[in-house]
């Protein structure tokens, strides 16, 4: 604790809810293996790397023994060296050697290419070509790279779209391909990962065509199923190197809970303000701090608040997607060199961009997964010095749960990475691409896909006139370029360019443009505020003017469902299940202006933006009236909207008058819209309307404070609890990522049924069959949900089952168990 007291003042110390200390760990060192060329060993020794960490030696040995290898040591543990050394050795022994490096982002590609170029130029005499081949590579450079690159740095998208379908241009490259290096492999999960697994199948097939059989080297963040996952991704046996031999200083893991500022309402101070407070304190102490925050907007808010609290504002910078890539490189460089002391970032920096070890990582609110939290925390740590990892809990249920149950964050296995390379929609696309690349010869395989399944697909392609068989060979037979038909990433939408007086200041992806840069929005960029003057949708341009504002804007949106075509429906036990094509409409309806710091609402604006429509497939089920009647009888149904009684309007007006139309928490006076009247003890917890509506239980609050107060007393509904369970278990049945499907609970579904129930749909436009699969798994899903919720040790609910319980609220565990029982039993 001595270290701890040294750095924080008491206003911070008193709110530390959890403090765990990991003792400093000594490095486990080994000598360079003697089979390495002397000049390689000497080179690294001269650079100050006198010995290898144990995991580096293990990895180098495994790679040297031609084993496919995955390295999962921590951030900043010298993972890249594990493959750099054996590849350099190979290059020196055989300058013909080719290697392909796949990085999930362009930034990482740049970073690694520069490093390799340095090594190669410093001690390999042969002429070694090193090139980046991605969307930014100019065409005159492309020709040179195709011909002469030994080390090719690219990304999966480019491999899929540009390289494999033109493999003849890379003839020499593939003939000599020895290594496939895949960095940050844990990114390739869900649909993206399933696509990528097929791209690897195609890559191996083309390599084989040119007579090569490359060795795979992967790096990954810690995953609970790393071996299983990587085995499935590359369909090869792998050696897993996970025993991290790098040293770490003492590490402090802290969960900070903002203090309660209104006892009666249970409202805590905002996590963002507390994050700024702590970051400012850390800034004064001269250490280097990385602040993570979930959204791009929150990054900008923290940045501008923080700059108001410090003198050297240039040493505080922001980092997120949407900045120009040249600006991002510059920021990375300055942070690495220490010129920037505090960097506020979205998870854009979570990926392995090299910024060195830091003194402190500060996270504003739980990032939503254990894996992300650990990835972000992993940025802290310098050897020989203590480092601090601080999570500032927000008032979200999940965050408050972690405050009470830190073991969930620290001891549980991180989320699994799941993929399904054989998903029919994904597979079909890649088989088309594979066929385009090279005919299939009878008996030829495609990864681990069973032969009879492959044959079925090839037959289908023939039936639909996309393939042609002659002499035991099946050929692509269409006037098209199938790789163009799919994007590996679900968010493949276009980009809007942000223009301020003819100057391009950044970009915003199409999906976010509507809520981020709608007309009259305050757009914050590197801490400066701009006002959006025009959102030019056809030309994808956002026009902005620089303007200092005393407010920021926040959009209000809603999601609607519409049934397009019902494909299947069935009346089943206690419910009716449906499967069909649906339209999901997200509309940004308007926005509000909120004052900086106080968040006071200054006004509202309406927006007339075209709705963003996604046509996809969904599976939904409605719960029968009979069951609801039974549950209501047992007081286990709380999805009905509260009926505050016939006198509610006049009671509420009385309360507002009593409170003089002033928010009783923040003190704002009503302007346009009437303020809300809030039940201090939730309405649902009372037996009678009269008792709940007693004036002493009612209080006037502005909408923003009302939301805060509600969160603390949230009475979770059984349906919301069930949705939460489905959200966490469904991915396991269909091997997708959490974000590949969306799960909603609704008291009135509105897709051909007005009953309450759950709606689950494919996130991706057009769908890839996930919902249909789930429709068929209805009972299995319910049974699994039942097993989990029944077997969970918690009392009322927790994130591992129905979802966290509010600080002063009630969980829905009992209700959920009851609902599921009714949906599974033959007779009630």
């Amino acid at each position, binding site marked *: 604790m001595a270290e701890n007291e040294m750095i924080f003042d008491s206003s911070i110390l008193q709110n530390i809810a959890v403090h765990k200390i990991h003792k400093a760990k000594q490095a486990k060192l080994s000598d360079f293996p003697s089979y390495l060329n002397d000049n390689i060993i000497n080179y690294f020794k001269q650079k100050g790397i006198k010995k290898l960490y144990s995991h580096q030696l293990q990895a180098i040995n495994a790679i040297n023994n031609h084993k496919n290898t995955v390295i999962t040591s921590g951030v900043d543990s010298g993972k890249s060296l594990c493959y750099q050394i054996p590849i350099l050795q190979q290059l020196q022994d055989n300058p013909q050697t080719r290697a392909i490096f796949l990085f999930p982002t362009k930034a990482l590609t740049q970073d690694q290419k520069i490093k390799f170029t340095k090594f190669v130029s410093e001690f390999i005499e042969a002429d070694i070509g090193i090139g980046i081949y991605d969307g930014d590579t100019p065409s005159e450079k492309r020709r040179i790279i195709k011909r002469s690159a030994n080390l090719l740095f690219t990304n999966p998208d480019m491999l899929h779209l540009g390289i494999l379908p033109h493999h003849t241009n890379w003839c020499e490259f593939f003939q000599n391909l020895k290594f496939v290096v895949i960095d940050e492999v844990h990114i390739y999960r869900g649909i993206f990962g399933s696509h990528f697994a097929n791209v690897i199948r195609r890559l191996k097939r083309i390599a084989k065509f040119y007579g090569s059989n490359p060795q795979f080297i992967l790096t990954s963040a810690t995953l609970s199923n790393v071996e299983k996952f990587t085995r499935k991704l590359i369909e090869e046996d792998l050696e897993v190197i996970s025993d991290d031999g790098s040293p770490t200083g003492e590490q402090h893991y802290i969960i900070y809970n903002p203090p309660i500022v209104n006892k009666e309402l249970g409202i805590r101070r905002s996590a963002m303000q507390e994050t700024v407070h702590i970051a400012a304190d850390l800034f004064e102490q001269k250490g280097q701090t990385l602040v993570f925050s979930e959204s791009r907007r929150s990054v900008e808010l923290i940045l501008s608040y923080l700059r108001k609290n410090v003198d050297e504002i240039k040493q505080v910078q922001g980092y997120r997607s949407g900045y120009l890539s040249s600006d991002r490189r510059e920021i990375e460089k300055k942070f690495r060199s220490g010129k920037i002391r505090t960097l506020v970032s979205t998870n854009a920096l979570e990926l392995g961009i090299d910024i060195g070890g830091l003194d402190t990582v500060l996270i504003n609110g739980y990032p939503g997964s254990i894996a992300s939290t650990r990835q972000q925390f992993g940025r802290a740590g310098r050897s020989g010095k203590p480092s601090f990892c601080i999570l500032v809990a927000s008032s979200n249920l999940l965050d408050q749960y972690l405050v009470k149950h830190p073991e969930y964050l620290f001891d549980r296995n991180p989320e699994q990475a799941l993929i399904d390379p054989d998903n029919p929609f994904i597979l*079909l696309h890649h088989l088309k691409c594979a066929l385009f690349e090279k005919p299939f010869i009878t008996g030829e395989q495609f990864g681990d896909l069973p032969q009879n399944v492959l044959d079925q697909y090839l037959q289908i392609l023939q039936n639909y006139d996309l393939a042609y068989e002659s*002499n035991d060979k099946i050929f692509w037979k269409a*006037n098209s370029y199938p790789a163009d038909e799919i994007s590996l990433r679900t968010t493949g939408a276009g980009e809007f360019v942000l223009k301020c007086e003819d100057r391009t200041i950044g970009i915003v992806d199409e999906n976010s443009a509507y809520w981020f840069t709608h007309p009259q929005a305050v757009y914050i960029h590197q801490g400066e505020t701009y006002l959006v003057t025009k959102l030019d949708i056809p030309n994808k341009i956002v026009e902005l003017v620089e303007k200092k504002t005393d407010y920021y804007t926040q959009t209000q949106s809603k999601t609607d469902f519409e049934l397009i075509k019902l494909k299947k429906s069935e009346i089943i036990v206690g419910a009716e299940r449906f499967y069909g094509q649906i339209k999901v409409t997200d509309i940004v309806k308007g926005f509000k202006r909120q004052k900086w710091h106080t968040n006071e609402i200054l006004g509202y604006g309406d927006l007339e933006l075209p709705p963003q429509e996604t046509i996809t497939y969904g599976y939904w089920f409605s719960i029968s009236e009979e069951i609801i009647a039974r549950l209501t009888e047992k007081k286990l149904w709380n999805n009905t909207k509260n009926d505050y009684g016939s006198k509610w309007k006049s009671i509420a007006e009385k309360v507002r008058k009593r409170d003089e139309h002033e928010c009783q928490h923040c003190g704002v006076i009503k302007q346009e819209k009437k303020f809300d009247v809030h039940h201090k003890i939730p309405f649902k917890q009372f037996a009678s309307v009269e008792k709940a509506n007693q004036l002493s239980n009612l209080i006037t609050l502005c909408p923003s404070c009302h939301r805060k107060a509600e969160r603390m007393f949230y009475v979770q509904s059984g349906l919301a609890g069930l949705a939460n369970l489905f959200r966490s278990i469904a991915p396991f049945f269909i091997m997708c990522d959490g974000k590949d499907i969306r799960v909603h609970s609704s008291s009135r579904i509105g897709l051909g049924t007005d009953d309450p129930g759950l709606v689950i749909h494919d996130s991706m436009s057009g769908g890839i069959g996930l919902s249909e699969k789930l429709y068929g798994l209805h009972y299995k899903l319910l049974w699994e949900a039942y097993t989990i919720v029944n077997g969970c040790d918690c009392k009322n609910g927790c994130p591992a089952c129905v979802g966290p319980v509010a600080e002063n609220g009630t969980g829905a565990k009992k209700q959920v168990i009851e609902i599921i029982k009714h949906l599974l039993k033959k007779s009630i």
Partner: protein
Amino acid sequence: MNDIEALLKGVLPNKKKKTRISKNKEIHNLVKGKYVAENVFLIENKFEINYKHIGNKLIKYQIHPLILNYSGLDKANIEDLLFIDTETTGLAGGTGTYVFLIGIGFFKEEEFILRQYFLTDIVNEKLLIEQFINELNKEKIYVSFNGKSYDVPLLNTRSIFNRCKGRITEHANIDLLHISRRFWREMLETYSLQNIEQKILKTGRTGELDIPGSEIPDAYFSYLNTRNASIMKNVIYHNKLDILSLTILLEKINKILFLKNYKNVNLFEIGRLYLQNEHVAQAISIFEDILESDISHLSAIKELSFIYKRNKNFEKASALWLEAVKHNEYYAYIELAKWEEHKNKNYTKALEWTEKALNSKYEEYIYESEEVNKLKHRKKRLERLIH
């Protein structure tokens, strides 16, 4: 229909219709020719010199030095030329695009010989490409229409893909698309060979025997399904016309250059072509011709003035710059300023031009570019020299 098929129906195209395999409609039943390898059918036609191809006579001709230089050649005999055109299963490129028809043409003595190698089943594409490679055994010069970026790289891809014996040699390529784009720049809406035939060669194709290029891939696929080669006759005809048109087009281009018959061409572009290929005298004469009939042709003024400057003919150069500043041409102010300062040592005049340059620049741009800063430096220096 099995489960997978039912599931994927929404993302699949229309199901293949049941097709009847035609009898006696194979290519050898419909077109005169012979098989030279498995599934490779050769159609050979010989045309005597003076054969009339849609209104134009097929003749042997000299190739103008400009065209040779532009294509990276010093000299060439008409008999060294190999006219090529290929038909493929797709326009997207990439390894899934197969070549099924390669047409080549060349002059030999008193004849123009056209050979078309037609592939009756893509399974033997390798043999087709090898036939083509055999035609390349002696030094040749390709004449193509977009062959530099399409046909030749594609043939090269196919040779690697099929692991062919021998390679497609990288001969020089007279690419008539590139040349046409220069000759008739801004004068045609599209630069397709058909449009050039119509607008430049003043000929049209007879519709019933031809097929639009965009329909060729699907026509071939349908032939593979039905073995009915009737539509392939049109494709072969289309390919033949393309090659004959290439010979006529090249002759037309030569004639324009030899006879200096510059009506209906973009003369300025031809001047630039001469300049780029270091035929400076011709370039000067063309630019002078242009200015004779149109003294306000600003691009010609600019090009010509710089030729004069390079030739140290400042008198003529400065006359043109003085003409150009009438049109507020920024570069001309600068050139005049340089000329007055360095050659005439007339600093006052140089300063005058520099100031005018600055004013002309400020009107257009808000920002102070590097160029403007340079100008300001010049201004300061001149002011110092004057005082």
